[in-house]
């Protein structure tokens, strides 16, 4: 097992290296950040000064070499636009995004698994059909549109919930979180629901498919024949077996929730990392883009590893053997 973990970490280092190279070349190909950063009133001398100050007057290879040297020392550079370390900029926003993503995942799992089970156990009932139709909507409606509709209905018409922003934060173990206050929760609910919608549909469908398949298996028939109560058959035997694909997908999707909460964050003015990424791309703020992607790649690696570890706990047949990977 330790060998597996080490090998994974080495692989992710390689991914980080290739990714940073691509981003460097990509941003360079798009345009010159100085064109956007410098005030329109600036004259040629000012522009030259700003270019030199950001180190952008040097050849791309030299710029990349400087980046690698600093990155090896743990410094991913300073944001062109904000003039603060890129890492600091991202870590400042990370709690907001994590809070949103965890809330969305909780909604998806807590609602999705029971609903999926229900739909799987009674596929032809009205409830089962309604759940499945609803999940199609969850899949197919674009997030930004649903977000705007949620705002329209719950903020503008009904006036129940705030339309945007994050509520007041409190420190929990040194991390600023907003879900501890009523106002914070009110701010969290709409964006979390919006972000959860797609994942909710996914969990429902996975659970339903798994349930239907499991119900036909011998062990379920055997359990029923043994005279076990339906609650025990479903709650223990079926549920445990369908959890493996659900955990995989939830794990992988959690990464994408964090990395791509962009749309929801923009619609709800949620001050998270996704919004920062979009703004940084618009400003060609290369250090922030690179640092963001480094962090996301690392997150994905860690999450995938966690999923694999969770597998081995859920399914005794799966073992993270050093030889098999």
């Amino acid at each position, binding site marked *: 097992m330790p060998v597996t973990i080490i090998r994974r970490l080495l692989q992710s280092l390689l991914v980080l290296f290739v990714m940073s190279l691509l981003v460097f070349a990509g941003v360079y190909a798009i345009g010159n950040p100085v064109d*956007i950063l410098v005030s329109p*009133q600036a004259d040629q001398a000012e522009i030259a000064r700003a270019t030199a100050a*950001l180190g952008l007057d040097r050849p791309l290879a030299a710029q990349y070499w400087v980046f690698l040297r600093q990155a090896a020392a743990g410094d991913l550079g300073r944001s062109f636009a904000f003039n603060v370390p890129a890492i600091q900029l991202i870590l400042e926003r990370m709690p907001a995004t994590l809070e949103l993503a965890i809330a969305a995942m909780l909604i998806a799992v807590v609602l999705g698994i029971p609903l999926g089970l229900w739909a799987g156990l009674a596929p032809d009932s009205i409830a089962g059909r309604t759940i499945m139709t609803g999940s199609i909507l969850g899949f197919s409606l674009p997030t930004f549109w649903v977000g705007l509709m949620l705002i329209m209905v719950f903020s503008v018409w009904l006036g129940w919930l705030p339309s945007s922003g994050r509520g007041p934060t409190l420190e929990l173990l040194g991390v600023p979180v907003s879900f501890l206050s*009523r106002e914070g929760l009110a701010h969290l609910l709409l964006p979390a629901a919006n972000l959860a919608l797609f994942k909710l549909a996914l969990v429902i469908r996975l659970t339903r498919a798994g349930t239907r398949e499991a119900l036909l298996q011998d062990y379920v028939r055997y359990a029923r024949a043994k005279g076990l109560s339906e609650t025990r058959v479903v709650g223990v035997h079926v549920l445990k077996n369908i959890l493996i694909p659900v955990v995989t997908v939830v794990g992988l999707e959690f990464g994408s929730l964090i990395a791509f909460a962009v749309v929801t964050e923009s619609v709800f003015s949620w001050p998270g990392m996704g*919004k920062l990424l979009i703004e940084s791309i618009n400003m060609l703020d290369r250090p922030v883009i690179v640092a963001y992607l480094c962090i996301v790649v690392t997150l994905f690696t860690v999450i995938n590893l966690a999923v694999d570890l969770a597998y081995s706990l859920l399914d005794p047949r799966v073992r993270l053997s050093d030889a098999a990977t």
Partner: protein
Amino acid sequence: MVSPIRFFLLVLLLAFGPALHAADLRIALAADVTSVDPHFANIAPNNNIGWHVFDALTHVDENARLIPGLALSWRAVDGTTWEFKLRRGVKFHDGSDFTAEDAVFSIERAATLPNGQFAGFVRRIVAKQVVDAHTLRLKTAAPYAMVPQDLNSVFIVSRKAAAGAATEDFNSGRAMAGTGPFRFVAFRRGERVDLARNTAYWGGAPAWDKVSLRIMPTDPARLAALLSGDVDLIEQVPPADLARIRTRADLQVAQKVSWRTIFFHLDQYRDRAPGVTDRADRPLERNPFKDARVRLAMSHAINRQAIAERVMEGTAIPASNLVSPPVFGFAPGLKTEAYDPEGAKKLLAAAGYPGGFATVLHAPNNRYVNDDQVAQAVAQMLARVGIAARVETQPISVYLGRARAGEFAFAMLGWGSFSGDLALRALLATPNAAKGAGTWNWSHYSNPKLDALIERSFATIDENRREAIAQEAMTVAMRDNAVIPLHHQLVSWAMKRPLAYAARTDEFTFAHHVRSR
């Protein structure tokens, strides 16, 4: 961690306390504030915050005209010396008195801050002399009329608080001591800036105890925040939503012509302009844009009124100048070119293009109001006189780099300037890096007469004479159709009644100018 009792009390307070204090104001801003250091990035969102906390020696009014700020008056002692008489009895938020030393310190900080973008405004000042605590003399190497104008961009910080301070010290609030109408409370990057009233403000204490400026770059989110009552006022209202806001009895709109003028650059330096061909895609012998008749024909082919009314939904006024009407140096004698497709065809025929020609029209698609749609409309209008313009739009981050590299022959640009001569120097003066002229002259338009007028204007100390020269320069450039001016944007704010906002040509959103009627 918060103790359970305090946490409980806080929950109670949040749940049952008053939702909002009566004299609090919440404003949604359309663009991100990257820093609150007033001498770091010269971008409008940062400067907007700066104007709440700081003052400059000179201010501008709603019409973008220069008025006294921390300087009560200024005059040119001789051709190269400006004397500023400073306001007395003004205190910084840190309690220290405002004196000429603070002004000198601020000018020096603007000139030397690493990565700072304000050095250009003070570069021409070669010597600073503190005559007494409230008299400051600034010397330039050559006669230079723009010193008071340039100092409008230099925020005055407290020497006591900001000595040795880096950008981080401003962001954290440690060095954020100005003389402005609001004291700085907190900056949460990407989220909001909180301010509190400066009761001792020299211009009269503002009406609001607390101001919260929220950053909401997404248009629908900003509008929803206003409609749901989360904020009291929003800036940069998208034109498509104005009609809806006007139908609501509880909301109102404030509007004014912006200093931003939209126009088209036309390649006038290359014999073969990129992307310009005949209508069968064969390269042309000559560059048609070099012919003033062709440029005039294109101007006549554009129905500016229709674009302002339809595409811009009433939020633009047709332009004849490169600066908008309230701005210094606007030449009122110039008339908007009439919409005259028949005349345009005749001009094209006279210039040797009876069958028209083909070109690419480049425009950004995320910079100006409805920029891509405006470009489409212009292309269709040009098609009617025989010019087949294919529209290519890009995000501004890609667009600017390509434009600077000279890849465009026919390209849209928007420009906001405090004065006509400044705009002309950047946009139409013969490019000259040593003089800082023609930085944005993508056309490479070059007219010795215009260059001479611009230089004379910059060296003319007398305001009235300078404005006359600036107007003459504008007239020369526009009569020659050096660029094709399209329209001046209108800028809109929407707010809850009974709030009222003194709408500004420079597009800034100032909490201290929001009144509750």
